[in-house]
């Protein structure tokens, strides 16, 4: 097996692994026991999805996926900040 083929296989394994992690974080978000715990789980779910897109970008050498990653990280941060602020102002979420 050449190095190039090994490189592709490793990145494809990484992509599948990242997708499995996204599924795991989704389960954690669904099964969260409190609202803020769910906010936290959704935050890391979004960031893990960003990591999956990054792996896809490396595998395909496509810059557009990393632009999506950047947008996802920004949206995840804004959403978490808004949800945490709302929870703080209302005393619960």
């Amino acid at each position: 097996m050449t190095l190039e083929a090994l490189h592709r296989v490793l990145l494809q394994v990484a992509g599948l692994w990242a997708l499995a992690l996204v599924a795991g974080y989704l389960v954690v978000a669904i099964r969260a026991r409190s609202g803020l715990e769910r906010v936290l789980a959704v935050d890391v779910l979004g960031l893990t999805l960003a990591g999956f897109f990054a792996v896809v970008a490396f595998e395909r050498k496509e810059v557009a996926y990393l632009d999506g990653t950047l947008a996802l990280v920004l949206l995840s941060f804004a959403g978490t900040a808004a949800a945490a602020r709302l929870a703080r102002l209302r005393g619960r979420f």
Partner: protein
Amino acid sequence: MGIVRLLADLVVLVGLGFLTLSLLGLVRFPDLWRKLHAAAIVHSLGLMLVLAGALGTGEGPLVGRAVLIIALLGLAGPLTTHLIAHATLHARRDREGDDDPPGDSAHPRRPAGTSSPGAGVASNPDGKEDDG
């Protein structure tokens, strides 16, 4: 160049390992304070390692964007953790009364004379709203 690529792939896989550890922490840890550590510290490290795999591609635009995202993660990660911890602290005070979070006994949040349980729960005990 091939070896560098493989090393970058290994860095990506190590980062995914850290993300898996973070998932394990979110599942296994009993309360939100400990889950915050797993979600914030370990997850940020794992995601930064995954993005560091861009160095293996050797393409300028990919590396530049990856560095930008890593910098953004370094800024946004502690901020979100702080916001969630702050909201949890306020929600807990509103729900249960006036007690300090675990591990905060070295930094009491108010003078000793005003520490009766339930006193000043509804209002802000500091007397000011730092909400901005």
